[in-house]
């Protein structure tokens, strides 16, 4: 069973309520109003990304992600999936083009406003990027602490999340003592603990066994059903079939592989 705050949209939401209540300066509400007008949580228009003076890693990307959608991002290695995700979680700014996130242009957005937007995004990094000197518990609690959640309000949701990803007995362990699969689960727990509006996951099931991969996918699915827009980069074609309503973006050599235009606004798959 998922953590309590994932089971209902009105329950725990204790965490969700407290986390949002202390962020009065963030553009969540305003962003939602604007999203209602455009219907897209992410919008790319002719986006290009170049590292240094090299060739463009991403070229002419134009697509939009609907609020509350579930997306798989696929493509061969080196296609630019991680670069695209970095643009999504605001680790990079594009070399050209327009990106609107939560209804706002983040390309020209002043740097000082980015933290408020980043708190609305959960990220599962390909290489996990756990803080090595922090325990499993503290790594998972990190987004909540950054958001200013009181210590007394951390214990329950973090413990529940650790139990859900099967790491309740590893709460005090440091990342170096965890296996690759355990580290990945910590990274996923950290990404979803703050109930982000947008979840970006880079190969989130690459190091876990099929059973755990399925559980994690259900976690993403539960989050998505609560309204979180989910985008998962994966090579695992079996995962694609697990979420029937998911849509697919395919990258190839830095471009959306979309010869028919169907992938830009891909049709829903028929329910099984």
């Amino acid at each position, binding site marked *: 069973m998922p953590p309590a705050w994932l089971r209902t949209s009105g329950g725990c939401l204790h965490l969700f309520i407290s986390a949002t209540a202390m962020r009065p300066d963030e553009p969540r509400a305003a962003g939602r109003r604007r999203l209602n007008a455009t219907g897209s949580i992410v919008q790319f228009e002719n986006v290009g990304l170049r590292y240094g003076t090299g060739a463009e890693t991403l070229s002419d990307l134009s697509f939009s992600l609907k609020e509350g959608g579930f997306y798989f991002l696929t493509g061969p290695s080196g296609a630019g999936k991680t670069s695209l995700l970095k643009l999504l979680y605001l680790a990079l700014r594009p070399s050209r083009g327009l990106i609107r996130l939560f209804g706002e242009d983040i390309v020209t957005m002043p740097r000082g406003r*980015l*933290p408020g937007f980043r708190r609305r995004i959960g990220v599962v990094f390909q290489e996990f*990027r756990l803080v090595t000197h922090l325990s499993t518990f503290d790594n998972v609690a990190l*987004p909540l602490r950054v958001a200013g959640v009181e210590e007394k309000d951390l214990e329950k949701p973090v413990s529940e999340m650790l139990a859900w990803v099967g790491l309740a007995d590893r709460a005090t362990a440091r990342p170096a003592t965890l296996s690759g699969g355990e580290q990945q689960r910590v990274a996923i727990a950290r990404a979803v603990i703050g109930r982000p509006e947008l979840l970006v996951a880079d190969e989130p099931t690459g190091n876990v066994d099929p059973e755990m991969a399925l559980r994690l996918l259900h976690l993403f699915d539960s989050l998505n059903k609560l309204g979180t827009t989910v985008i998962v980069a994966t090579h695992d074609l079996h995962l694609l079939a697990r979420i029937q309503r998911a849509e697919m973006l395919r990258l190839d050599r830095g471009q959306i592989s979309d010869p028919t235009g169907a992938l830009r606004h891909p049709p829903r798959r028929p329910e099984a």
Partner: protein
Amino acid sequence: MRGGVRRFGAAERGLLPEGRLAGPMPWVIAIMMFLTVLAAAAGLGLGGAASRLDDQIGGRVTIQVVEADPVLRDRQAEAAAVALRLLPGVVAVRPVPEAEIQALLEPWLGAGLMRSDLPVPALIDVDLTPQARARIDRLRQAVAAAAPAARVDDHAQWLAPLARLIGTLQWLAAGLVLLMVGATAATVVLAARAALDTHRNTIEILHLMGATDLQVARLFQRRIALDALFGGLVGFILGGLVLIAIGDRVTALGSELLGSAAIPPEGWLILIGLPLFGVLLALLVARLTILRALGRML
């Protein structure tokens, strides 16, 4: 940055690894503080000495009536004293008693000196206000008119080289303190940069979680301030012990000149404030360094 008012709270201590941020920084600061305390103490002691010299003899002149005829000498001395008392800015006029003059001469000429044996000048000590001291020429004219055999011995004039030396040493001490402040600030800058490099991965993760620059900077500021406080206190205690030891030696010497260079009570307050100033300086420099470095990240 917006949202910068947020703090990580009590758990912030754990967000950076425990232990000192940049190994030798507290010890470098301790050395800097030790030298700063000594330099500042020297400056304060010299300032006190200069002030005491000025108070005691800087505003004083001595009139010497150099006249071989004792009757004429006494008459001119009396006339000079009367003329001096009439001058504005003259605080006190004190004819030096015979016994005191003999006591002054005794180390050179021996005891039992009779005034008739040797024509000793009559002396008059005159204390002046600073304004009157600035118009010493008027005093000279008045004395010359009343006592043609009188000479005005301006203490400040022969104290001037000593005062200039003390002033130079004070400036040197102030310069050393400023150099130490600059070196301490540079040490903190290097330590902050090293700490940022060491913890770059953690900082990037915190940023991607939505931490503001101020939130991240506070983590480092706090640690650097603690390091600076530790180093500052060690340096201050060592410096204080050295000063106490030097004070004991000076007292044992019994030298009036060296004794006058004692640190005044308010000077000790300044010295005690140095470690706190060091912490504030470290905080400010660390904050500016870190915010500037973070500003170059996305």
